[in-house]
């Protein structure tokens, strides 16, 4: 194995958990998320030599991943996943945190794809607005717009709003 291949393998092991979690939030199941991330790495490998550092490599990977997700949507619908009615407004007990997480995930899945992509990149993968804009190939203003609309939609979701209110009281 060459040094270049070793570096690539190390990078895959280090970066793939974060990418897989972001992809899972986008597509909703592990096999599809793994396909998406694998595709992103496969497209990055031929350009490996031209990407000078891990920051550039990660930025390129997120760009390919987002593009593959949005292009995949045009070919086949893999966005919205039906989520059952979740209990909400429960009292303060141990299950509240779990219910809150499930409600937030279900509400995030109901967002339109580009808004969901911004939520996954900004709030789960912790990219900056500029990095998110580069990944989505749009301006930071567009990212701000998507982000504001997505947050407003999540805040307006009754289950999420109620549970966030409960959490902030504690």
């Amino acid at each position, binding site marked *: 194995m060459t040094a270049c*291949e070793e570096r*690539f*393998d190390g990078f*895959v*092991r280090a970066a*793939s*958990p974060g990418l*897989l*979690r972001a992809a*899972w*939030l986008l597509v909703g199941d*592990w096999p599809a*998320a*793994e396909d998406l*991330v*694998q595709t992103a*790495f*496969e*497209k990055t*490998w*031929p350009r490996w030599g031209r990407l000078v550092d891990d920051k550039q490599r990660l930025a390129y990977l997120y760009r390919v991943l987002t593009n593959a997700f949005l292009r995949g949507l045009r070919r086949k619908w893999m966005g919205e996943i039906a989520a059952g009615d979740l209990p909400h407004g429960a009292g303060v007990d141990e299950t509240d*945190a779990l219910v*809150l*997480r*499930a409600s*937030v*995930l279900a509400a*995030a899945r109901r967002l339109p794809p580009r808004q969901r992509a911004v*939520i996954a990149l*900004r*709030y*789960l993968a*912790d990219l900056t607005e500029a990095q998110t804009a580069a990944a989505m190939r749009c301006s930071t203003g567009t990212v701000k717009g998507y*982000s504001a609309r997505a*947050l407003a939609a*999540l*805040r307006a979701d009754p289950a999420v709003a109620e549970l*966030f209110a409960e*959490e*902030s009281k504690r």
Partner: protein
Amino acid sequence: MTDFGDRLARVLHDAVPEPPHELDPSAIRASATQRGHRKRLLAPALAAAAVAAVAIGVPLAGHQLATHQQPGPQRPAVPSPAAGLTASEFRMAPPAPIGRRA
């Protein structure tokens, strides 16, 4: 980030599970190499097909256009100036009656 954004980030970090499997880097490299080979084989074939399509399509379209081209509307007949009249005299002359052409 807003307060709501901060809380959302925290909840998402907790809510999204850890991936069940690790990706296999050597499988990724092998698949990328295969993809590259396919691209290298497919690209010249696609380019040749595109050139052939243009080479056949353009003369064919030209031929069809020539075959189906309708003759354009005839220009209105312009009467030739009568012999012996100057240009200004011809312009002053009364128009020919409708239906009769010079």
